[in-house]
């Protein structure tokens, strides 16, 4: 969504800029949360789905598995991107 789509014509330049930059920040936040949702679902399957649910908390192995899962996913993603860049070059 951009500020012009909101019909912000009645606002002055300063207000329009403020609203626009608020929207951009919210879009970044939305993208971040979306990534956390998909990482959580993926890492849940890898780290927790097989374990017995004995209580509401995470044990030490589970939380360290989640941590590794996030970091290795990003490593894997970066490997794909850099490989693609090499192929394109």
């Amino acid at each position, binding site marked *: *969504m951009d500020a012009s*789509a*909101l*019909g912000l014509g*009645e*606002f002055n330049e300063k*207000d329009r800029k*403020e*609203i626009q930059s*608020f*929207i951009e920040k*919210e879009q970044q*936040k*939305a993208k*971040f*949360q*979306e*990534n*956390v*949702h998909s*990482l*959580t*679902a993926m*890492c*849940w*399957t890898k*780290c*927790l*789905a097989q374990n017995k*649910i*004995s*209580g*509401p*908390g*995470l044990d030490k192995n*589970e*939380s360290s598995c*989640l*941590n590794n*899962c*996030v*970091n290795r996913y*990003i490593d894997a*993603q*970066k490997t794909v991107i850099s490989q693609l860049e090499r192929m394109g070059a």
Partner: protein
Amino acid sequence: MDGVNNMFGLGGNQTKEEKKQIIIQTIQQQQNIENARVLIDKINTNCFEKCVPKPGSSFTSGESTCMTHCMQKYMTAWNTVSSAYIQRIKSDPSSN
């Protein structure tokens, strides 16, 4: 832009400052609702899979307890993943 004004509940009696606040609050609210909706959907999917592997003719108390624990566990996992992700982005900005 009547449509947009209606969407944000802007009638015309508010000052520009009030209108700006309403727009900002509405966007924020919508985003919070969407975030909660996705989280609830993921919890339902993953915890149903986990706690009710073979649906029987009634919802047992064991299944119900499992759902409660699973839900809390999923939310803790969400927070753990979120902080791990933030930490990674901070120490390695290219991973964002």
